[in-house]
């Protein structure tokens, strides 16, 4: 069995790379061991929110030259990043995902705990502010579903009041179909509510209840659990509710993230790509500096070969990296990973401090070819969260690194 490209991992980076390659006529196979981090997405993409020294960035592309040489952006180069940044909104629009934002400057998204974080592009429906100094004037109503614990209204109220608004009330809405979910408290989660809210009678009822609750407030905050099947629902809510709606993100799973994942996967499959969901690469063969084949759990003893391999299997959480008491390993190909020998320096006991282990990753050359036992693997590319050279959580660059390295690897493969 032979493909032009085998992509390992099924998240943002793999899908962007796979869709680009498949549309360019390459036969692609994507293997994904279960679903991925898009299910935890904020509904926004970060390109660069902070420099490694902690200084906040307002113009991310212009700040790239300040990053170290081992950073994935530095390997791609500012010119290419600009080119890919220009292409990004159209790429997503072609997959049915509408993005907003100005590629040259950061915006600010509202986090589920009521703080503002820099972001680069956002889904059309997601609430963002042009600057950290944004002021909201007037009164605000915060609405939650009774019994929904993944939406912290007190934190949101505290955060939003710092922006100048006065939160007049926090109110609960009870709808029969949502109340039903409360029978099993562990299923009272964003996605369960979202699936109930996909039904027309339910979102209409919700809009009516919110409209009835309003007592002349200028703003209303509601959890981002609408439009899983059809984001137009968000627009219709705006029409039916006589106040400016701020959709606020919930704790995971993320409804906009799930929708993004579904649309990207569909784009890949419709373009002719083969997607193996729920399968796992168990063995790989690398010889003479080239990856040759992989074997998967479901396909058994079949060697699946390809001209190129893309490894996008994520970071520790996705098991793209594994750690033992002494070492950090990349389990699929056994690639070289950069990390300090002194285990005590891997982490900071202050949970909220910058954690070094989040910056560990696979070492690569300028073209994202990794090394195995010190020698480069010429037809293998490592992209996305699996890469070393950056601490994406700290920098707010996770989606940016995923997208930019995906475009870069795809371009190199297409030019070969």
């Amino acid at each position, binding site marked *: 069995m032979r493909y032009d490209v085998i992509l390992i991992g099924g998240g943002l980076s793999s899908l962007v790379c796979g869709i680009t390659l498949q549309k360019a006529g390459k036969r692609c196979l994507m293997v994904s061991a279960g679903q991925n981090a898009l299910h935890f997405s904020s509904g926004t993409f970060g390109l660069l929110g902070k420099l490694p020294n902690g200084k906040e960035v307002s113009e991310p592309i212009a700040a790239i030259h300040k990053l170290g040489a081992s950073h994935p952006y530095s390997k791609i180069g500012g010119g290419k990043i600009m080119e890919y940044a220009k292409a990004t909104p159209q790429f997503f629009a072609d997959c049915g995902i509408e993005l907003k934002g100005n590629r040259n400057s950061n915006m600010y998204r509202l986090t589920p705990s009521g703080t503002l974080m820099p972001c680069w592009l956002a889904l059309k429906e997601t609430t963002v502010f042009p600057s950290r100094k944004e002021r909201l004037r007037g009164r605000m109503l915060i609405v939650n579903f009774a019994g929904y614990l993944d939406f912290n209204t007190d934190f949101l109220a505290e955060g939003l009041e710092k922006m100048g608004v006065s939160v007049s009330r926090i109110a609960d809405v009870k709808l029969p179909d949502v109340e039903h979910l409360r029978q*099993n408290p562990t299923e009272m989660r964003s996605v369960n509510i979202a699936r109930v809210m996909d039904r027309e009678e339910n979102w209409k009822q919700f809009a009516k209840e919110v409209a009835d609750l309003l007592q002349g407030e200028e703003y209303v905050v509601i959890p981002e659990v609408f439009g899983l099947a059809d984001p137009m629902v968000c627009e219709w809510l705006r029409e039916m509710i006589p106040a400016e709606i701020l959709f606020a993100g919930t704790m*995971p799973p993320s409804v906009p993230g*799930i929708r993004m994942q*579904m649309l990207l996967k569909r784009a890949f*499959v419709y373009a002719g790509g083969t997607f193996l969901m729920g399968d796992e690469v168990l063995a790989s063969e690398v010889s003479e500096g080239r990856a040759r084949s992989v074997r998967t759990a479901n*396909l058994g003893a*079949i060697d699946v070969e390809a001209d190129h391999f893309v490894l996008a299997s994520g970071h520790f959480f996705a098991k793209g990296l594994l750690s033992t008491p002494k070492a950090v390993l990349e389990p699929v190909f056994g690639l070289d990973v950069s990390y300090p020998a002194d285990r005590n320096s891997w982490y900071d006991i202050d949970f909220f401090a910058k954690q070094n282990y989040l910056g560990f990753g696979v070492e690569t050359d300028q073209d994202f070819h990794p090394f195995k036992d010190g020698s480069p693997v010429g037809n293998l590319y490592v992209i996305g969260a699996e890469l070393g050279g950056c601490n994406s959580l700290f920098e707010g660059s996770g989606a940016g690194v995923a997208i930019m390295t995906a475009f870069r690897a795809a371009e190199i493969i297409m030019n070969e």
Partner: protein
Amino acid sequence: MQQRNISFNNFEQCIKCTICTVYCPVVSVNPAFPGPKQAGPDGERLRLKNKFFFDENLKFCMNCKRCEVACPSGVKIADLIHSARRNYDKQFPELRDVVLANTDLMGKFARPVAPLVNSLISTKPAKVVMDVMLDIDRNRAFPKYQSRGFRGWFKKEARAAQDCYRNQLAYFHGCSTEYQHPEVGKAFVQVMNAVGWGVRLLKEKCCGVAMISNGLWSQVARNANHNIAEFRKAVSRGLPIVATASTCTLTMRDEYPHILGIDNADVRDHITLVEKFLFEKLDAGEIRLVFKNDYRARIVYHIPCHMEKLGWSIFTEELIRMIPGVSLTVLDSGCCGIAGTYGFKKENYASSQAIGKSVFDQINALSPDFVCCECETCKWQIEMSTAYKVFNPIVILAEALDLEATAAANQPR
């Protein structure tokens, strides 16, 4: 500290991410179902403490396995749910469920009077009677029983010729091939013979998937033990066991050990699906396929849930794409809503059609010549709910192949 899992179904690995729920087709249409996370790993913690925590509503799980395919942590959620039903549900199944689950027995009864049964069950009064008496939904279209089954055809028309092939395999045809769709079995024999393989039949019993769904636990264990014993005999004679139905294959490979606790480790890897079997032989250069020059078709491929779980849709895709003159679009995978006997039940009919809507909409939007699918119950559902015909991949291959030229190309040199 406990360092390793102690359960075979991995439930300790659940991190409560709720991704399973996103892909559960039932939870969005049936509020009575507690959802895969609660019904599976969350509920298991409680049930292990006290069986009192068993929830009757676990019966609403269709066992489509999409939760397991989506789980990033490898938790066998549907196995947990159905093992719990087997261990804790002491209710005896109602008559309707026994009738629906016995696909094999019903076929045997219906066959001698097939034309009568077919015309009777498609009449409105009979549908109303079944609806009222048995809670089988009156809107459901029934598959047609055939007067002459696959085995009868095989015995009369094909068996004698099988000895002349140098390679031999055992064919597990399943209930739908025997009673409703003998054309699938005929196509299988034609294609296998053309590539130089002779076909043997087993003394098979229904794989029992519908008995698992309907809680006929002792009956399904008898069938499973019978089939496994037959497979052992076949394997000892060097015969691979090849099936044409994805659900039978998954059930016999994975549900027997995971849900019924029946050890099949010695034969499991010998049980395969025809698409995988053919692809592997082609890939190894052991067989050749010669297609007709003038075959043309625009095909969409609906991946049945159990094919998705097997992870073998790739073989069907590869085989169908080999046919010159075919354009193949793979549907964005989703459940068609029938789930074997599930959609036949009155209480599930509306859910069933709501679940399948995304699949039907995609098919209608793509307006293909026909749909390709390995599962016969998906076929019934899609044919009832769209204007398109559905064919098993082996039927498509038999049609697209130049069988004589293929036979000539596979002659021993």
